[in-house]
């Protein structure tokens, strides 16, 4: 069946087109709108987009396949990106991935059998000071350990993604889970240093180091 955007989103497209001197420049934002509605960039979406912007389907496909965030096959209800680049790995990124694979019952690159979660490995997500972290759908969850991760995943199942994000996502506070008071941050380490008052208190030392 042919793909069509909702009338509301169509109006957004009309506005998008005014932002750029060339029609083609709306391609990425338009693909985002479609993916948000459809969940992935299906062949029907490619047809729709190429007609809307007067581009060949090959051109549109070429762009879709270049970018990792455009899905060219269907994904689960929630997409979990686990960061495995150095800063996260130094703070336990691999343990986070292992735990997710056990919990969701699928390895990275696959979707859980109930269709609720697709697990993907991510490259650095610009949250290195709050490692380890995962991105679920379009929200970040930082300063993780496996207990917190369990709560976050469970909340996605029992309460839904939006409520889980409200409770656990760390964007608005730049690191601290929303429910933790911002004032728990330690004082600046030196008078001229300005610590961004958001991360939880300094991590306890790893087991075995000083004990």
């Amino acid at each position: 069946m042919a793909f069509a955007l909702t009338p509301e989103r169509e109006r957004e497209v009309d506005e998008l087109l005014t932002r750029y001197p060339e029609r083609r420049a709306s391609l990425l934002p338009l693909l985002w709108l479609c993916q948000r509605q459809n969940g992935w960039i299906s062949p029907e979406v490619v047809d729709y987009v190429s007609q809307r912007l007067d581009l060949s389907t090959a051109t549109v496909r070429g762009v879709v396949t270049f970018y990792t965030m455009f899905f060219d096959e269907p994904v689960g209800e929630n997409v979990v990106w686990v960061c495995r680049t150095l800063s996260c790995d130094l703070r336990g990124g691999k343990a986070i991935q292992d735990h997710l694979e056990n919990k969701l019952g699928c390895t990275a690159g696959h979707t859980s059998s109930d269709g609720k979660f697709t697990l993907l490995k991510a490259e650095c997500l610009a949250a290195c000071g709050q490692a380890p972290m995962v991105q679920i759908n379009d929200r970040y969850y930082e300063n993780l350990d496996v207990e917190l991760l369990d709560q976050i995943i469970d909340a996605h199942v029992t309460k839904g993604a939006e409520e889980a994000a409200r409770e656990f996502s760390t964007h608005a506070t730049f690191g601290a889970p929303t429910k933790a008071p911002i004032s728990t941050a330690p004082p600046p380490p030196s008078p001229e240093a300005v610590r961004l008052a958001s991360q939880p208190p300094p991590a306890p030392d790893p087991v075995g180091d000083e004990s």
Partner: protein
Amino acid sequence: MSNPTKPLLTTRYGIAESWKIANAERAGAYRVAKRALTSIEPAKLKGEVKKANIRGRGGAGFPAGVKWGFLNPGPDDQVYLVINADESEPGTFKDRSLMDLDPHRLIEGAIISCYAIGSHVAYIYVRGELAFSVARLEEAIADARHAGYLGARPFGIDHEIEIYVHTGAGAYICGEETALLNSLEGRRGEPRLKPPFPAVKGVFGMPTIVNNVETIAVVPDVIEMGGDAWSALSRLPADGGVRLYGVSGHVRNPGLFEAPVGITMRELIYDYAGGMLGSRPLKAVIPGGSSTPVLDPRRLVDAPEEDQPLHAWHGKSEIDVPMGVDTYRALGTMLGTCCAIVMDDTVNMVEACRNLMRFYKHESCGQCTPCREGTGWLVDVLDNLCAGRGKLEDVDLLVDISNNMMGNTICAFADGTAMPLLGFVQKFRDEFIDAARNGLPVDVRHDDSVRRKVEKVA
């Protein structure tokens, strides 16, 4: 040498709901933009930015004032300002804080910058993962427009300014400025050959200034204080002001800090970031994002002659050299994005190197053979070394592959891959040789020291 006792860039971060325009304005937002647009000539604004010695905060450290000076638009040209918020260099997490916690500072900086360079449109290119930052920026832009600071007559003057957010979709290479311009035009994010440089022929074929988020966000302070005074906040010459420093990895207190340009890595780790996790020894630190060659605290600066740029630090540890664009270049590394990755003695450098090379293999855009193939070969060789399938010659093979990548490609990505690899092999050669002989036992893999903490088992 002066140190600000009060924060500048981050001064509004701690305010409740700092991203709302009313709260930001109560704390001073848009006052400088209003004064600049209504009473200062664009040429004077450009002059102050030049005097401020802002070294680009996106990684290359090019002076912003000089870049702006390259603009020479024809009578029918539309000049564009493009703000690089792709922030994807591993280890780097500073620009996100500006967008999430003080979007109005970025918008104010963009308004002043557009006016100064004669641009009517600015695009902020945000990496796709940062949907939250995109929402923050869009709300802030709408509020600024509603307040009359953007649109056909910002602050009542006859110089239209519009700011649009453009969202990427997951590709590190789109941080490279010409790849970013292609992506903004709706193309695959593949870098373009330079010249022509963006200031001559950029987005939509028009003269374009590409600057990092932080570079633009300091502009209001520069105009408020005056370029000379702002520049003098730094401890170094020709590299002005204050900047955001990030620290991740094995420190007690990872996070972002604002400090003058020119603090040392030792200060950053031990004073700002609370020292090493578990008081373990510092083994290595990647100073400014993964493309900057690693520093080894045991190595001493060798600059016995008085005319050598680092002579003042002769005999001191690499981590005691002030962090500046020029000092770090003289040290054989780069300041990059000024976000450090700190590693303690549990980390095996071959494994750390492999982790980063996998990143580059994944992110190469594939246009140039030395880069596309080279990144893959590096990972293959490193995988073999780690798994105990390596040979002694493999260590030199890594160096050889890297040397053939450097300078042979369209963009600086290949150099940004080869340089850190060469740094690792040069400074930690013993470990590579060891790995070639024995492979890496699983328990020296670098996540294990913190694994138990994350897993919460005794």
